[in-house]
């Protein structure tokens, strides 16, 4: 049944229709263990919808979805917890499975919020809550981790640290990651496969190949594309301190 042991999710020509309008259409993608797949694209391009199909939250109205994951963890894009519920960070960490306290603390330490463990969720700032969300997903030790704009509202230094953490978790747990991100720098430097969405798949491939793709340039503009080509450029040579090229 599963010809490839590393395959976690395969979407084949999938799409979601809402009141006879296609939100996304013709989506095909594969997520493998130990690899990071990133979805990029403008607002309303169907990134979250695609992620929800991979997570089995939304049914596809066409094509087929194969899901071999045994434990999925999800960091949703927007989550508002009703203030009518007295919920502490530690209760939230145990939300969908029981995790022992040492592991909870360990995961919160990774995202730098272990001191907030007994705080009420409502008293956290946006960035702190985002860190708790990521810690919760990591603590579950999933084989498939779906992160929908995971670092929104996180401070600049924290953002880099969290992206590094995501990369590290991917190797450590050997889990597949589906990431939605607007941080093109991280996307291009750390992910294995990039999918560029705009209601359908505009282009996809390795970060290197994608920055050269004309539909990518069209979607993100000459300026961004150029910045990123420059970024790619850095990999094939090194600079001296004054900026001149070595060799």
């Amino acid at each position, binding site marked *: 049944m599963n010809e490839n042991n590393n395959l976690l999710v395969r979407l084949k020509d999938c799409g979601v229709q809402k009141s006879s309008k296609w939100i996304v259409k013709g989506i095909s993608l594969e997520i493998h263990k130990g690899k990071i797949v990133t979805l990029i694209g403008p607002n309303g391009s169907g990134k979250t919808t695609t992620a*929800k199909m991979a*997570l*089995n*939250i939304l049914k596809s109205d066409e094509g087929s979805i194969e899901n071999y994951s045994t*434990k*999925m*963890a*999800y960091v*949703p894009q927007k*989550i508002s*917890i*009703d203030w*009518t*519920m*007295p*919920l*502490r960070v530690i*209760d*939230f960490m145990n*939300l*969908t*499975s029981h995790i022992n306290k040492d592991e909870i603390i360990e995961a919160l330490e990774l995202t730098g919020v272990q001191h907030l463990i007994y705080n*009420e969720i409502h008293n956290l700032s946006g960035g702190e809550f985002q860190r708790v969300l990521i810690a919760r997903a990591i603590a*579950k030790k999933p084989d498939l981790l*779906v992160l929908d704009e995971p670092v929104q509202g996180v401070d600049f230094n924290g953002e880099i640290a969290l992206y590094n953490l995501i990369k590290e978790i991917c190797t450590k747990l050997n889990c597949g990651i589906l990431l939605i991100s607007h941080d093109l720098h991280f996307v291009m430097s750390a992910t294995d496969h990039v999918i560029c969405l705009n209601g359908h798949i505009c282009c996809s491939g390795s970060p290197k190949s994608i920055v050269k793709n004309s539909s990518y340039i069209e979607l993100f503009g000459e300026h961004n594309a150029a910045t990123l080509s420059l970024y790619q450029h850095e990999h094939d040579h090194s600079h001296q301190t004054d900026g001149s090229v070595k060799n």
Partner: protein
Amino acid sequence: MFDDFFIRALVAGVGIAIVAGPLGCLVIWRRLSYFGDTLSHSALLGVTLAYSFSLNIAFSVFVISAVVALLLVSLQKRTKLAGDSLLGLLAHSTLAIGLVLIGFLSYIRFDLMGLLFGDILAVTTADIGLVWIGGSIILIILYFIWKSLFSATVNYDLSAAEGMRPEVSNFIFTLLLAGVIALSIKMIGALLITGLLLIPAAIARNISNSPRQMIVIAILSGILSVVVGLFASLEINTSSGPSIIVVALLLFIISLVPLEIKGQLQKR
């Protein structure tokens, strides 16, 4: 010491309070108080149907509440009306149908006040058995679906993504809510059942800081309201339902005091 009927009412009432605690918390967390209201208004229709066809009251109320809940779901899919409008539509039309039916059943002596506001004299030994057995079943089911229900209350997508099957537990929860209304209609009355679900949970929200604590306090304050309310009802000869709810309200006001003190301390 007390009359038998009073002991019966106490035993049944405490049983109801225990079941109402956790369900009331969920009603508050999910903002379903108006939904609870709708189910309890439709309970009156259930009672009149029970009299018309000589069915068991609790059973008939349960079936009607469940039907109303299903109707709501299908109306939500078919119409463009918001949830609260549909709830209002169902609440008042089922209440109205119930009252119209009562008019037709003129050959039966009806204690309308009892139906609407509860009557402790009506609690029989069989009712006690019903409350405790039914209540136990509700709590056992709730225990098994708790994780799913709770996670879906916090975030539906997250719960669905992580394999909790929230659509199933949500459906079961609706039936459990119908169940607790069916159990408590005799005692509390159709108009006030939601009060017994909501107020103890609201008291608990004021003075607790974890979900588990909130449930325990909701149960305890529910029991206290029932016991004190029934004593008051006996002493000053008032309907049982309103007496219980008034006591619950007094407890709610008292529960605001620690909140107030905490606020004052934080200001300093």
